[in-house]
């Protein structure tokens, strides 16, 4: 049984939110991911991921101000909850454990091959 359910895209999103710190709202997250990782993020995928993580309790959101270019619609800012932090940490730990567990020779052979 997995302790924390966190998909690859979700992990990227949660980390980006952490990077953006207090500025994390959907368009900013999208831009950040797109610029840092050179991948296209669709609005649909992003919002679904955000919603799912909020439901899981990894994220918390609050309504922000509305600006002119948003035609007065409020922004929705996201923060990582303690549980979210643990989940991200857990993901990182399990990865690193895996990295460490790789025998050097195998890795090199496979790289060389």
């Amino acid at each position, binding site marked *: 049984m997995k302790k924390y359910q966190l998909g690859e895209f979700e992990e990227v999103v949660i980390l980006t939110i952490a990077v953006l710190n207090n500025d994390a709202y959907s368009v900013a997250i999208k831009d950040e991911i797109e610029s840092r990782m050179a991948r296209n993020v669709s*609005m*649909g995928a992003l*919002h679904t991921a955000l*919603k799912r993580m909020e439901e899981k309790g990894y994220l918390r959101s609050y309504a922000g101000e509305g*600006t002119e270019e*948003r035609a007065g*619609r*409020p922004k*929705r800012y996201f923060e990582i909850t303690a549980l979210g932090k643990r989940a991200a940490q857990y993901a990182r730990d399990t990865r690193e454990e895996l990295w460490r567990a790789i025998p050097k020779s195998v890795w090199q052979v496979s790289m060389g091959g």
Partner: protein
Amino acid sequence: MKKNTTTPPASFQRFFRWYCHPDLLDYIEGDLLEVYGRRVKKLGKRKADLKFIIDVLLLLRPGIIRSRRRQLTTPYGMYKSYFKIGWRNLLGNKAYTLINMAGLASSVVCAIFIFSFVRQHLAVDNFHPYPERTYRVVTELHRDVVAYQSNVPSPLGEHFRNDYTYAEKIARVYTESDALITLRKENELVKFKETGGIAFTEAAFFDIFHFPLLKGRPATVLTEPNTAILTERMARKLFGEKDPVGEVFWFQNRFPFTVTGVLQDLPANTDIRSEIFVSYPSLRTFDPWLSDDTDGWGGIRDGMKCYVVLKPGVPTAQVEDVLSAYVKKFRPTSKNVHHYKLQPLRDVHFNAQYGGPVAKSKLWVILIIGAFLIITACVNFINLATAQVLRRSKDVGVRKTLGSSKSQLFGQFMVETALITFAAIAFAAMLAYILFPYINAFFQTHIQIDLFSDPTLLLFMLGVGVGVTFLAGYYPAAVLAGFQPVAALKGKLLHQRRGGFNTRRTLIVAQFVIAQVLMIGMLVIMNQMRFARQSDLGFDKEAIVMVAVGRDSTRTIATTFKNEIARIPGVEKVALCYAAPSSNIDWGNSIRFENSTEEVNFRTSIKSADADYLSTFGLTLVAGRNLVPSDTVREMLINEVMVRKLGLSSAEDALGRHIAANGGRMKGAIVGVLKDFHDKSFHEEISPVLITTYTEDYSNYAVKIDLASARSVLATIEEKWLELHPDQLFEYEFLDDSIAGFYTAEETSLKLIQTFSLIAIFIGCLGLYGLVSFMIAQKTKEIGIRKVLGGTVTHITWLFGKEFIQLIVIAFLIATPIGWWGMRQWLQDYKFQVPLDAATFLWAFGGSCFVAACTIGYQVLKTAGTNPVKSLRTE
């Protein structure tokens, strides 16, 4: 300016709003707009639009779409509350509910009746196998005026069958109405009179018309002479439960027929009324002239029909062309007056010219009246509901402040309307079910309704329900939903909504227009009927009984019996004749005048009668003298119309001139000219009439009796008649009854329009009642103040009275031209008509004023009489 150019595609934005979960809507829409704005700057509008669309489509995924379950659960409670509040409102305002329901229910009953009536007529003879290709051959007779006959010369069908290949099937049918059918059981004679008659039918008839055979072999049942098939009902009537096949019955005591088959009972929706079909070859013994293929061309006998089914693709014009050649070929000596035409089967029931019972235009008028009745009921509904609005303004105000949207309120009032409407329809359906037997008896219709097993009727009622809900509910619901909550809560609507009252006035006017048009129609029809019934027809119709001459009577028997009748005490006069002066039966003929070899160009109605005819019917001579008694044709009487048609200068001029009629077989000199009398109904002009002593044609004793002893006289005549003709049925009819029979269609129209106008007036009154209650509620204080300042009861009554008189006058001004135009159209059917005088219209006006006064009088007087203290104290 800039904003306009950078809005995303509106339809996709709307689509997004529609599917997006409401919690997320604002945020995501904001995102979309922000990104869109950026893209427009970077990529241009077109690409940004495209990307926007892609984004919207990619957002269409489970986490973002609004959930269905939530949508279903919330409104359920709301609808329940709508129903509950609606129900409470209905119960809380019993008067309002009752008025609405009563008005709606009565108009829906009418609508159900009209719907069934119209549908029944549209369904007549629509079940036959070749509906598109079946025609009836009919005749137009072109003389000085064109006459129309649904009959043809008897040989036409046979010749057409042998000469041309246009037709797939041809069937000739000769129907003898009012058949005397007898059964011989040992020494006993059982007599039946069949009004449906007996039809001499070619077997192909049953290929053209779908009347399935239950017993007997279709190929052979009607081939041999003196064979017959009966409907099941008729077979049971004649022979009881035993197998009718092989049994024998007699027609007119002279012609025996053996039953070879049994037909399924004729359905209600057919115009074919005969239930006894006998083989066409039997006609040879019954009527040699009619069955003769050359002599038969000489004239047209009533009841001789010819039906054809054309091969697919054969144009009717081509067939009519070849038929027209028959006239020259087979009627070389006659004037060329016959024009044979093909009448489509689906036209037969609706073409009044050829004796169709219901013209389509009449069905339309009835449909329109039905629609009007429903509209009046809707108008009521609107009126009363808008009056209610004021009472409910607080309710609406509270709902609005608590966040009800306009559409929710609108929905709520529509639900309430639907509640009343469908309750009224259910009530109407019940009422219709109970009332239909009476309605049928009253209008002499045979409409059947199956409320629950008839899908079209159910669909119709559902349609009426939905239609009425929208018609009646839309306006009040829109008014209610449109309130300003502040004004509604402060109770300021009274002042705010003056305009609404005008709408209501307009509606009341509309109601009264409808009611008055119907009233005018009713009055004109009543006038015309009274005119037709009470005008001097030019002869006596009172106290005259027409007694049929026995079928096998010879001239001497008839004359002897006439003298015998004359001796009965109580009988004043007796004449032997073909028919009464005014009768549906007449014998049309083309005559030759003086030495001319050519027939005249008009139709003459020959009334064979003896010398007592004039005195019995009180006909008056304007010139010359009466006929002298004679057993052969020697002398002739004509009427003034005939004098004119013959182009003679005066009645005296006609005396002594010679006439040859019936192809020269009847010749005589004119000895007298009769003053014109109505020989037909008022629908028709007076025809040229010729009276002569042609004894072979005598078929009635016209007996003028003393009405005081009518019963005993008739009994004596019947007794003596049956002694003379024991094997026949004694038949008689009072002349005034048979003349009244000319107008049965009008009687039915009159009853219909009377009923409809009563209902329209009733509904109109309900509306008035509603309006006056509303006005009184509104003006309570005003009345109080007026009274305190010295206003009298008359003064206050007038305050309301003038309001309503105004409305009725306006309605009258609109109704008059409509009624005038409509009734002028109706009167066109009559050659002799009552004038459309002002009195009729004034009566309609006076009537509606009176009814209005009665409706509002009580309430107004009550209010006018209230102590002002009461009305002023309430605040």
